[in-house]
Every structure is written in structure tokens, then in C-alpha cells.
């Protein structure tokens, strides 16, 4: 229970499971069945790109059901053209769904008001090339109606945070790809958002930059923010994401916690320290007694890469939705 007067109003009984009620108070009132723990909810989300005459060109996303909970890092995985960016754009209201709906922070995805609490890093940093880093961040700060003093502090802090201190007075058109990416991230964080959507955050970054980016994402999660990122760099996703969804040609193929997805249920791994070579034969015998077939003992877990390639191979052989893309985390 909070002591906040607005939350204690009779029309809005305090929700015992809510951790952060302050900022979401307004939304709870407009949307009675809004669960503050569900940050993103997509139901049957479908996007068909059509040409000028309304003829179907591409079915970029097909009946996606998705739920992202507060405080997690959610990864969208998939090969090129599988609909990752399309999903993010639908969540932002940059695209309108052909059918289905997306609710973000309790508001319809097309509602502008929700942007108050969202940060977005596009695939490429679409910024005004004639502005320098400070001007860019100042401009976006104004768009959040931030007063001048708050803006100045926030701009300096972010420039330091993304490591552009030396280049803050240079025009963006002089920036390298990695620098552009960094200022793009700073721009997405200008309003201290609750939900951050990152479209391929590590693309164009050097190994060091990639590491920094991943650390930053983890730090943001620790601050209680929700992050949705899409990438085809599997190592990145494996390192940071709590849950992933794997898309292929617009279809959801797999979704669940990274650790449980990577657990190979048909195999057993035995690990032991200082086991003498002679024991191997015995163990093998026991396995054979129990009808087991596998005889390698030092097999590690599979990597995300293997899982991913397996799904892609599998999907190419048998197109269409996978039988049960159930959430394995539950």
C-alpha cells in the first residue's frame, strides 16, 4: 500500500501486487482492466503490407500473441525480413495493424499519450544530421515538454553515459556508425522511459561498444525498466534477454525463458570433478542397463544458435505456425 493520495482514491482501490503505482495512476483510471505488470499486450496482431491499389504485397506479421511483463528484457529473434521491426513499429503506432490489437502501457498503440513513457531506438538512427549531439538531445527533450534546467542536466548526463563527451559539439553527419548508434540510444533515454524498444541495438558497434550496450541494457533492467529488443545477433540475445520470441516469416515459432528454451529435455548431462577414467565404463554400463543410448558424457548445453538454426531449418521444411508455441516459462 502506498501513501499516495491519488492512489488511495475510492474509485481506485490500491492493488496489492502493484509495485509502482505512482506513474500509472492515470492509465489505471481510464482502463479498468489494465494490469500494470503487463507492459505490452498484443492479441492476434497481424500486418499485411499492401500497395497503393490495396493489393497484398507481404504478410509481414501473422496473428502474433505476445505479453511482455514489467521489468523483463524481452528479445525478438528472427532472420532478416521475419517481421521484428514490423512488430516494434506496430507497438509504437508507426504502423496500423491489419487486424488484432496492441496495448502498450495500458493504452492503445496508436495513442500518442503513451509515448510520454516510451523510448525508441530505430533500426538506423533517424536523426537530424545538421544538429550536434547537444542540440539533438535538447530538441528531443523539448518534445517531452521538459523545462530548460532539467533538459540541460539530462542532456549532459546522457552524453557522458553513452560516451560521446568528446564529440558533443560535432554535427551528427560527421559521426561514425557506432557514434550515431550511441546518440540514438541517448535520444531514446532522454525521458527516462519505463519501456524501451530497441531495434538491433548492437548493430554497428565494436566489441567494446557491444559489451557496453549490453551492460547498459542490464543496468536499465535493474533500474526497473522494461526492455524489448530485437536482434539477429544471437549471442547478444542470449547474454541479456530473460525471454525471447522467435519469428520466422511473420509467424511466431517459439517463445519462452531463455534458460528453459535451451534446456535439452531428451538429454541428461552428468558433470563431476576428479572422476577417474575407470568410472566411465561403469556409468556407461548403468546407462545401458536403463536403456539409454547416448554415450558421450561431457556434452554441454546447446547454444541459442543451434536452437535458432534448428527452428529455421524445421520451419523451411514445414511452413506455417508451429503446433504449440506455448510460453515455456509458466
Amino acid at each position, binding site marked *: 500500500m502506498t501513501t499516495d493520495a491519488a492512489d488511495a482514491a475510492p474509485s481506485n482501490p490500491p492493488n496489492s501486487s502493484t509495485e509502482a503505482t505512482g506513474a500509472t495512476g492515470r492509465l489505471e483510471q481510464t482502463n479498468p482492466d489494465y494490469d500494470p505488470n503487463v507492459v505490452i499486450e498484443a492479441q492476434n496482431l497481424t500486418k499485411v503490407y499492401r500497395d497503393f491499389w490495396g493489393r497484398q504485397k507481404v504478410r509481414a506479421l501473422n496473428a502474433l500473441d505476445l505479453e511482455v511483463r514489467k521489468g523483463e528484457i524481452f528479445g525478438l529473434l528472427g532472420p532478416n525480413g521475419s517481421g521484428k521491426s514490423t512488430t516494434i513499429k506496430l507497438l509504437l503506432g508507426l*504502423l496500423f495493424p491489419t487486424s488484432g490489437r496492441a496495448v502498450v502501457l495500458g493504452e492503445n498503440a496508436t495513442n500518442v499519450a503513451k509515448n510520454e513513457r516510451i523510448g525508441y531506438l530505430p533500426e538506423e538512427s533517424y536523426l537530424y544530421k545538421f544538429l550536434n549531439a547537444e542540440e539533438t538531445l535538447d530538441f528531443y527533450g523539448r518534445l517531452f515538454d521538459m523545462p530548460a534546467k532539467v533538459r540541460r542536466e539530462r542532456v549532459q548526463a546522457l552524453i557522458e553515459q553513452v560516451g560521446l563527451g568528446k564529440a558533443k559539439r560535432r554535427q551528427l553527419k560527421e559521426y561514425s556508425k557506432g557514434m550515431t548508434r550511441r546518440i540514438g540510444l541517448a535520444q531514446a533515454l532522454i525521458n527516462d522511459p519505463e519501456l524501451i524498444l530497441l531495434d538491433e541495438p548492437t548493430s554497428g558497434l565494436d566489441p567494446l561498444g557491444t559489451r557496453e550496450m549490453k551492460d547498459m541494457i542490464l543496468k536499465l533492467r535493474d533500474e526497473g525498466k522494461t526492455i524489448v529488443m530485437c536482434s539477429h545477433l544471437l549471442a547478444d540475445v542470449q547474454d541479456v534477454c530473460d525471454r525471447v520470441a522467435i519469428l520466422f516469416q511473420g509467424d511466431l515459432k517459439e517463445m519462452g525463458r531463455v534458460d528453459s528454451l535451451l534446456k535439452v529435455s531428451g538429454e541428461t548431462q552428468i558433470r563431476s570433478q576428479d572422476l577417474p577414467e575407470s568410472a566411465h565404463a561403469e556409468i556407461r554400463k548403468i546407462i545401458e542397463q536403463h536403456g539409454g543410448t547416448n554415450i558421450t558424457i561431457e556434452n554441454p548445453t546447446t547454444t541459442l544458435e543451434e536452437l535458432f538454426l534448428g527452428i529455421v531449418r524445421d520451419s523451411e521444411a514445414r511452413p506455417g505456425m508451429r503446433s504449440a508455441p506455448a510460453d515455456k516459462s509458466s
Partner: protein
Amino acid sequence: MVREEFPQFLEWFGPGILLLLGVLAVGALLGLFFGYLVAAFRHGPFEAFYVVSQVVAEAVPDFLQTSPRRVLAMAGLAIKEALRRRVVLVTFVIFALSILFGGWFMDSGSDKPEQIYINFVMWGTQMLVLLMGLLISAFSLPEDIKNKTIYTIVTKPVRSTEIVLGRILGFGFLGTVLLALMGIISFFFIWRNLDHKHMIDGPSQTVAAFVEIDSETMKSTISGKRVSPNAISEATTTIDNGHAHRLEIYQDIRSGDDEALQTGDIVETIKRDDGKVTYHRARCMPVGGHTHKVTVSGTGASATVSLGPAIGYFRARQPIYSDELAFYDRDGVKDDKGINVGKEWGYRGYVDGGSRGNLSTLSRAKFSFTNFDASRFPDADFAPLEVNLGVFRSTKGDIEERVTGGLRFESVPENPDVENRYISEIVEFETAEYTVQTLPVPKKLVGRIVAPDGSLVEEGEYDLFSDFAGSNGKLELSLSCRDVNQYLGCARPDVYFRGKDQPFWWNFFKGYVGIWCQMMIIIAMGVALSTFLSTPLVMMGVIAIMIVGFNTSFIQNLAKVDEQGNLLNEFGGGPIASFVRILTQQNVMQDLETGVFNTVIAQADYLAINSMKLLTYLAPDFRQLNFSNYLVYGFAVDDQQLLIAVAVTSAFLLGLVLCGYFCLKTREIAK
């Protein structure tokens, strides 16, 4: 200058607001209808209701939550972006070049140099500024969408209103600065080119340089023409700015030596035996609408004569028009058109001067003035009346003589049943046909006071302001023709009192406000269209609207119909009928045969022309916003029309912002 309309802002405002509301309502209905159609096509007929109602429901909070800081941020960005595109700079350079070199091709010695200069700068400024407005507004949003920079904008809490408003304000600000610069430069350009001084063309700058005029022939040795009847000697000035003036010394005979008559142009004062005084004064004869002040220092032949700067340019004449003009026919019966004199009759109405058989015609044109007050005139001793009359001569009259007109002034009592009336004697004047002549109406008029029953109360001299117009500021002026068998024609703009001139710079400013209004509409239109069209289409759209806008009255005239619904102003029917005539080689005067085919054609034409007419309500009437003619002809820009122009502009801006908002909001940005 021909003016046909005298709109009053307050009279115009009510119907204007109604028209705006009507257009907005129709626009809203059409928007809902087409919005629903598109939504139904995309999402199916039931979902569409939800989509449309959501857009409508979000519109109100979007407008309410518009934040000035965001609008200003967007405006600032628009300014930086436009400056980077260098359109503004190029526009300014073109302007500067044409000002620098344009002067070479203009003849400052021509008949009306002022008109040529003002016309040149205003027309040039207007074209450049409108073109610039179109270019910067048409490129901006489509470019942002193409570069996808708009993605990082619309994913911030920026309302579509703010994107549209910010752009209009930003570009408007740039345009305003540019226009102001161009205005100030133009002002000094005209000033510098017209301002000049002359010296006397001769051995000395004294009276000795003047030569006697032959008192027999009274012809000038310089121009070869007859000179003024009281001229004594003459000289000419040097040629400056492409012209020279003739200088004259003339006699001015007065009944006494008065302080007020001792001005700086006196060469010699001769006291005569009969007590009268003859002044010899120097004057400069006008050329091309201007003259120079002559100053004489010293007396006699050694007095030096010097000429001051040009006077007469840069006028902003303030006409005081009548509120109403009524014609009365020969029998004194009121009639709204005047006497029909055939082909001439139309713009002007005519009054006749009677005939040999019936000398006592009551035909007259009665102008009613209100707020007739001495404070509106520069000189309280007389009220200058400017008239520009048409004359229709019948061969029965004396064709050689100038036609004489008569003016009579009357007071207009609030309550004619009890109050007396002042009626002046008829003041006669010779008409200068089809040119503007100034008649100084003296403040003291000979006349009489008449009781309500028509009986004479008193005769005497009465004051134009305190007696005639004294009770309620109303004054009636009757124009009659004093020559038998001739006719005088006038329209409401032809007869006006000339009030105090307005300062020229103020008038110049008002003229530029007109250009500013046009520019703002073009910018808003470019921004609104660019929310859903690509740059080339925006340009074509705006240019199409401009073409309609510059021809509004022409199109509205085309669509005029008589009671039966037949087109009035078209020979040979509308566009389709005309085309059929061309194909079938029929002449335009003959009616097409009646039949099903031709009825269909006529109906189609009717539709075509009326949809054109409908367009004129959507396109601004640019001529209504253009005041350069006032400046060119030296009149003060009518304040009522200026107010209307500003109101029309505001209405268009409002409509265009709304239109831009909905188009941008319903547009799929990332498509």
C-alpha cells in the same frame, strides 16, 4: 483606380463566420464519410466505426494538450531545416539582384515613375515570397518521411497538431523576416530612385537666369506651349532622374499685404497705388506627378532660387467615400441605376441636364456621407472633393463646350418632421472628362435653412462641418448636370472627399500585410497538403489552388445563372456544349436544338461549372488579399478590406491546420 466593392468588416463578419462554419461542417462530414470508407476498406465495416470514432475522440485531447514548448521546438527545427535548404537565401539573392540591376531597366523619367517602381517591387516581392513559401513548405514533411527522421518525432509525445503548427509557424516566421527585409529594402530603393534635386539650367542660380515671356503670344520658349495667364518669366532646371521642370515667375495680385501671404517663394513685392499688392512668386511646374518646393532668398534679379526635394510622390490618399449612392430620374423619382445611355451605361449611372423642351430636370445622383467631420481633413478651410466623371454627349448639345456639373449640399436631419434642413446653393464646375479633378469645397457655403414644411427660415452663409453636418455628421451631396442635352455619369467610387493623407510608410506596410496574408496561406496549404502528398503533388496542388484563387471572381462570374438556371455569361453554353459546338462547327449564338442529348450536355455543363464555383469557396480569393493597386495609384489601403483579409487568412489557417492534423494523424507513417 476602379473600386467596385466597399465591404465593411462588421457587416462581412457575420456571414463570413457562417460561411466558415458551413465549410468546416461540410468538410467534417466529408472527412468522416471518406475516413469511414477508407477504414471500412481496410478493416471491414464494423471495425471501421470503432476506428473513426477513436480518431474523433482523440482529436479533442490532442488539441487541448498541444504544448507551446513542443510547437516552438518544431518551429525551430523547421527554421533550421529550411535555412539549410538555402531556398530563403536564394530568394533573397534573386531579390537583391533584381533590385540592384532592375533599376537600370526602369525609366525614372517616365510619366508615372512612382507607379512603375511600386508595381515592380510589389509584384516581384509577391511572386518571390509566394514561390519561396511553396518550396519550403512542400519539401519539408515529405522529406522527413522519406528520411524516416519523422520516426523519432512521432514516437515522442508530439501531437500531429504540433507538427503541422510548428511547421507553419516556423516557415511563417522565416517568410515574415524575409518579407520585412524585402519591404524595407524596397522602400529605400523606391525612395532613393525617386528622390532627386534639380539646379537651374543656366549661367547662374539666380532670378537673372529667367527669361521674359512674350506677353502677346504667352507661349513658352522652352516647351512651345501656352503658359499660365499670369506668368512673367520662365527658366528650366537641369535634367535629373530623366526629367527637367519648367520654372515660372508669376504675378499674384492680392487685396492687401497679409502676414500669411509672405511665403518663401516671393521674388518681389510691389505695392500698388490702389492699395492692392502684387507678389512675384517663383514656382516649379509638375512633371510625372511631382514637383519641388521653390525657395527664394534675397530680392530682385540677384535673388537666388533653389529647389527642394521632390514632393507629390509617396502619397497615401485617403478617400472618404459615400455610404450610399442613389439616382433620381427627370421626375425626381428614385431609381437605382440612373438614366440609360446605351453602351456606356453599366459601371456608371447617368444624370441628364434636361432638354430644350423640358429644362427643369430633377435628375441627379445623391451621395450620402456619414461621419463627415472636420478632423478628417488636412485643412479646415475647405474640403477637397475629387471627382472622376464620365460624360455622355448628345449631339443636340454644344459639343465644343466643356460640360458643366452642379453640386448641392444638404443636411440630413435625424427627424425631418421637426428639424430644419440646410440646403446650399448649387455650386457649378466645369468637368474634366474621365480624369480625376479636385474641387475644393469651401467651408462656408451660401444657402438657406428650410423648415420641415418647406418654408424658408433664413438665408445666409453656413458652415459645411458645423451647420450642414453638425447635428449628426451626415451630409448629402447631389450631383446634377447643368448643360442641356448632355449627361454626366458617375459611380460610387467616382466621387469622394479627400481626407488627411496617411503616412506613406504605414500604407506601404499595409500593402505588405496583404502579401504576408497570401504567403501564410500558401505555406499553410503546402504544409497541410504535404501531410499526405509527395512534394511534386503538393506543388501541383498548391499551384492549382492558386490559379483558382487568382481567378475567383472570374469563375464565380462564369457560374452566374438567370432565374431559369441558364448560364448568363457564356455564349454557347458551358465547356462541354462549347466543345460539341467546335466539333459540329456550330456558331455560338444559336441555341442548340432541344433534345435528350443536348439536355444532358446542358446539365453536365451546369454541374461542371458549379463544381468550379464550389472550388472557389475552398481557394482563397488572392485578389482580395492584394493591395498593390492601392499603393500604385497612391491611395490609402482600405482598413476594412485589410481587416477582412486578415480574418480570411486566419480562417484559412484554421481550416488548413485542422485538415493537416487529421491527414497526418490518420496516416500510417512507417508505410
